[in-house]
């Protein structure tokens, strides 16, 4: 069939490539334009460095008691003083960074891994699968996270591994919810229909299309939850469930030091400030990430 076009007939014109825009560079630019976010990122980076370099930068052994110098005030020899067993508080904080970071990463990985898979499956298959999974998640959400992780930790017994597992489990619901909501909106879009049309399997659609497209808000949640997980570990350690005694953890240090709150406040304040700073930093980085990844704010910030 012939069709005389009124328009120019450049059907097979090969158009020039438009300039390439790097998503990564844009996010970096948005984030680095706010000083709180930069500040948070620096603290997070410091935490990571401290955690990995702890054995080299800590001035003293964090575990070995030195009964000749107990409960010392901050001095040049012990910048943050010593605790009831004569251990250097600064060294214990430096070594505690590794515990906090590890708990944060592992608990969030457990929560994220399980929560994201459950949410993906619930949202994608819908119907009864969605009902069963989401009702269980609703039930978990009804219990406040701290009592939940306390109960799980009590059930599994103390120790750092069990603390990580219990904190991880208590964080599952938020991931599941968020992922499920993301999937429910994305699965109606044309490109998912297109994936069905080209014959993609369910697994492929879930992993190759739904997961990458729902990732930005998950990334924000992961960052925010790092802070929450570290705080939860500190709370559990403070309550005596966390780490086994001689090892250093910030929560346990606050708990050990609060008996000397009036005579030697640095003892519990220093680890408390460390927790606060790290949690705050993770929250600020998470906040910055959210702003940078939110397409509605594109061009504003």
């Amino acid at each position, binding site marked *: *069939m012939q069709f005389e076009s009124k*328009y120019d007939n450049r059907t097979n014109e090969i*158009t020039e490539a438009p300039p390439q825009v790097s998503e990564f560079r844009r996010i970096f630019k948005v984030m680095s334009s706010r000083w709180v976010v930069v500040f948070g990122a620096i603290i997070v980076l410091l935490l990571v460095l401290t955690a990995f370099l702890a054995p080299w930068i800590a001035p003293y052994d964090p575990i070995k008691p030195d009964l000749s110098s107990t409960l010392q005030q901050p001095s040049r020899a012990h910048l943050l003083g010593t605790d009831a067993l004569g251990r250097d508080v600064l060294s214990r904080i430096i070594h505690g960074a590794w515990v906090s970071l590890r708990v944060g990463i592992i608990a969030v990985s457990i929560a994220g891994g399980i929560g994201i898979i459950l949410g993906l499956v619930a949202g994608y298959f819908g119907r009864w699968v969605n009902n069963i999974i989401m009702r269980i998640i609703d039930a978990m959400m009804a219990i406040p996270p701290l009592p939940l992780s306390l109960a799980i930790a009590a059930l599994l017994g103390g120790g750092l591994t069990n603390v990580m597992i219990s904190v991880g489990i208590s964080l599952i619901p938020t991931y599941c919810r968020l992922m499920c909501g993301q999937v429910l909106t994305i699965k109606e879009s*044309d*490109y998912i229909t297109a994936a069905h*049309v*080209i014959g993609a*399997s369910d697994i492929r659609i879930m992993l190759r299309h739904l997961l990458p497209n729902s990732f930005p808000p998950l990334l924000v949640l992961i960052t925010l939850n790092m802070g929450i997980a570290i705080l939860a570990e500190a709370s559990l350690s403070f309550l005596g469930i966390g780490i086994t005694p001689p090892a250093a953890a910030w929560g346990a240090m606050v708990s050990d030091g609060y008996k000397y709150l009036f005579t030697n406040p640095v003892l519990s304040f220093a680890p408390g400030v460390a927790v606060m700073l790290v949690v705050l930093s993770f929250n600020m980085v998470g906040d910055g990430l959210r702003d940078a990844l939110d397409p509605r704010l594109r061009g504003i910030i």
Partner: protein
Amino acid sequence: MNSMLNDILLEAKNLKMYFPMTKGLLKRKVADVKAVDGVSFKIKRGETLGLVGESGCGKTTVGRCLLRLYNPTAGQIYFEGEDISKLPANKIRPLRRKMQLIFQDPYGSLDPRQSAGSIVGEPLLIHHLVKTNSYGDYRRRVSELFATVGLDPSMVGRYPHEFSGGQRQRIGIARALSCDPSFIICDEPISALDVSIQAQIINLLQELQEKLGLTYLFIAHDLSVVRHISNRVAVMYLGHIVEITNWRELYDNPLHPYTKALLSAVPIPDPVVESSRERIVLKGDVPSPINPPPGCNFHPRCPIAIPDCRQAIPPLRFISADHEVACIRV
């Protein structure tokens, strides 16, 4: 066109698609939305069937039923002689190679996190159309597809947001072509594009049809576009086909009152003719597909309706060899 085109590639017989409306906790069914209500048509190999109608009349639903994205409520779909309307989900995949879809919205139909090359090449991997562990084969085929639709093959690594609307639509077309289908449903492929780009895409689709021997079902609401590309045109109103004929007959001798009204709404690009032409303006709105009027569902708006029109749904009947109408008044 010519006698070579006479074998039938796809046939829909009395196709129905009802979407249930549920209410309350127990999901009690209260009504059906009769999106497609008994549609029959045939598409010959190598031809283009235009499917027109206003929004909400069920055009897109017909397309999605043919692709088995929906499970039709009733009726048969014969594709290459085989009834595919009741195939179980796991038997549909081989079918996907032969039937493809081009979307209306070039912005929403490409995965924003997938590179253009990967979008176009994904069907090749899914259907194992390139030798596994032969990356060169895959890349060659993707570049070839890019060139076929008029895109620079060096752009395979770019992401959808870096392309213009017309370029994105070309990517969508390349994706549809990549598994070498025989039948493509074009679901309003140009209505979201600029006028100048519309012409380019239409020409591209026509060129591809000639080169690759494709068969199209071209869904549109714009009669002038359908006229350019279609061999035959089916007009839909509220889930029914009211008239099917070849495009020349449709424009020269429309019979159904709805078709006449539609054609009279097409503007004529000549101010003198435009001001003197007679327009048929329909009264009222399209009735709800949940509770369509009895009998011919066009009768409440029809200028030539008689009491008999309320009695029964008029079937499509032949007026001439290539002209079917569903109206008792013609």
